[in-house]
């Protein structure tokens, strides 16, 4: 992410709304994100749009690890995306936008370009 772009933090849901080991879809202004909570409680957010099928489904992918990378697998054609960087592991040319996540109290917030 280009840190010079102004961002705005948006509250999206409660921590309890996302079960560990799963993801949820998030509506952001003009776009959709997929918010994930891993088994150890870490939070990540990427685009919800699967670039290989054009369907908004990445929030429904299975979480896991490939080597030391944490990934989500697209539920449609099973490509893996790095949760930290958005990079697709099967295709170098494809990567997703990563949205910074923070928790305030029990509220999860995503950073979106202002």
């Amino acid at each position, binding site marked *: 992410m280009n840190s010079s772009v102004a961002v705005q933090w948006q509250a999206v*849901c409660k921590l309890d709304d996302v*079960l560990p080991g799963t993801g949820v879809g998030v*509506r952001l202004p003009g776009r959709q994100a997929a*918010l994930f909570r891993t088994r150890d409680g870490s939070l990540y957010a990427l685009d919800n749009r699967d670039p290989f*099928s054009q369907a908004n489904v990445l929030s*429904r992918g299975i*979480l896991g*690890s490939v080597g030391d990378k944490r990934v989500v697998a697209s539920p449609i054609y099973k490509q893996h995306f790095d949760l930290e960087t958005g990079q697709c592991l099967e295709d170098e040319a494809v990567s997703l936008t990563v949205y910074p996540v923070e928790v305030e109290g029990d509220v999860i917030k995503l950073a979106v370009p202002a």
Partner: protein
Amino acid sequence: MAKQQLLLIGHGMVGQRYLESLVAQGGREHFDITVLCAESLPAYDRVGLTSYFSGKTADDLSLVPEGFFAEHDITLKLNTKADAIDRGARTVTTNTGETLSYDKLVLATGSYPFVPPIPGNDRDNCFVYRTIDDLDAMIAASKGGKVGTVVGGGLLGLEAAKALHDLGLQTHVVEFAPRLMAVQVDDFGGGLLKDKIQELGVTVHTSTGTKDIVDGETCKHRMNFGEDNYLETDVIVFSAGIRPQDELARACELELGERGGVVVNNHCVTSDDSIYAIGEVALWEGRIFGLVAPGYQMAEIAAEHLMGKVENQFQGADMSTKLKLMGVDVASIGDAHGNTPGSRSTVFMDQTAGIYKKAVISECGKKLLGAVLVGDANDYGNLLQLCLNEMDLPGDPAALVAPVSDGAPLLGADALPDTAQICSCNNVSKGDLCAAIDGGAMTVGDLKSCTKASATCGGCSALVKQVLDSELEKRGVEVNNHLCEHFPYSRQEIYHLVRVGQITTFDELLEKHGSGEGCDICKPTAASVFASCWNDYVLNKPHAGLQDTNDYFLGNLQRDGTYSVVPRVAGGEITPDKLIVLGEVAKKYDLYTKITGGQRVDLFGARVEQLPDIWRTLVDAGFETGHAYGKSLRTVKSCVGSTWCRYGVKDSVGTAIQVEERYKGLRSPHKIKMAVSGCTRECAEAQSKDVGVIATEKGWNLYVCGNGGMRPRHADLFASDLTDEELIKTVDRFLMFYIKTADRLQRTSVWLENLEGGLDYLKQVILEDSLGIGAELEAEMAHVIDTYQCEWKTTIEDDEAVKRFKHFVNDNSADDNLKYVRERGQRRPAFEHERIELVEEA
């Protein structure tokens, strides 16, 4: 240069192999090929003829690849018999009045069954056992009779006896010699074989000759044996050996042997160098070879010679055989009778267990010359290799036949030389297998399809597997069936760990036996294993993140991110009222509607947030989930059966519903499909399913491990004439054994192909309970059945669970990216190019 005319007389197994070999060598560039076949069917598997009685069709037995004759532009004349050969004019005249000229002629006319010159041998209902037509005639004759008799207790005679027995006749075998299978086994082995066959209900008369056959009193015929000694029977089958079909050759004065057979040299050329003879009609060094393997060798050698390749010569052939006769293993290797001067035998016999083994050892005590095995032929592969390769014995000769306490093989596949013949039916050497493995073959199935090893009788399949494993290991291919990088175990091992360790959650499994975070391979596998073992609600919190999206939202994800809905319609039977509910739901939500191949209705295009409402309506109307989304039982298809059909012999719909209700929701390594047909017309196509059931007059025939789809496989007959209870018990055990032992995403068809020991082993485990796990399998199945729940009913009654059916966590709206096109009166997701147009219109 103009092409030469090649004429092949005879289209049996050997004739077909000749054509394949010739075509593979480019023979079509030099020859126009015409084939005369006296039978009404092209080449079929005569070795497997008996399976015609147990449900295989003429199509199953065919050896001709589809389109073979058209593809290679070969002319096949069926029902056409050669009447005479004119060697001077180089022509052949046929029974259809044609005269065909040839430049080269190949005789592959095979043999005919010898019928002993007994007065009355030409009466009605006296048959030979050679062709599918013979079998059809036997089947027809057996319908009115109760007793059947085979004259001849050799290999083929016992096959014929099994056929009569399977047709429901009281069966007798009459053998002139003092023992059964006189050529292959000795007195002790023959005696034991006789005992075992009599135990199965076949009466064996040895040292018995028939004087004449006359009208019977209680049956159609009476066979008189001597003083007051006779047998009454309705059907007689002569199987007293074969004679070469050499009439044509005799009439045109080719050189024949004293007792028949067309004399050939090492290239299968007869006394006329324009004429070849191959297979059972050919006489090489005074011998006829009545097995298919040497016939195949002759076919290859004759084809090579025709193409100018003279390197390979026929050198005689090993006549060792292994077969299962009426469930009894019998094998004979090399010098089974110890005729070699100075040879000595070592023998093991256990009459209680019904096992006899004899090894014939050379005078020096170092080499194996021959062997006889009855009752247990597991050592056949090892002994044959020792014998054929003239290898030094690995130790004490007595160890060759002594019972092995740890079951360890005598000989590793590693010890075999590359020239060792592994598959004698198709002449595949260890070197051939290694070449195929170098070429990328990774499984027994691969090897089978590219080398034909184990494709004919299957006797060598365990050895093929051993060679494969040891060669892969040598090549540094890690022979590992680890599930994924997180678990160094196969699915079967994971299943075992879960069951034995009573593990119920993925976290526990990962902590105890795995590493990393898991992935989209191991998580759904673990979820499936938990469901098979403990049958928890799949949406319970600890399991939620393990499920593939289909199982998470209990629907089938489609390409635009919406789901399809498939309620269960057990057996395909549905009331008009329920059908109307499906129509109303589809209409209300504008769902694209299609009838599936599994006799139910698929409703497409439901968004996640619509799913609970749709299912509330369906559950209220009495529907349950159809598990179309799961790796689990899908449907049990049925024909209408005796409910309405005038041909139906049993209630196929009722049984299909019973079976579907029993196994619904059962999670498995892959999806499972079943079908029940109400008669042998088989309208439910049960033989293409994992489990297929077909009604007969006497009960249910059970077929297993069939498949449609990408790699179709015809199901194998597993058990016949089952009662309702036997059917359920057998299917319970079969399914649980599959669930326990299969790999991830392995359908039953591939599972069986890779199962060491194959169908026979599976039958032993399931039908004879050879592992002693039958009761355990049934209990495990009972647990799954007792704990069944409709996942949709549970879901809609649980507010927490319903909450997750939202596209956005922070908004109740629908995905706004969905675009549809109407086609044939219904909607479907727009394709990419259509989306652009839709946006422009907007």
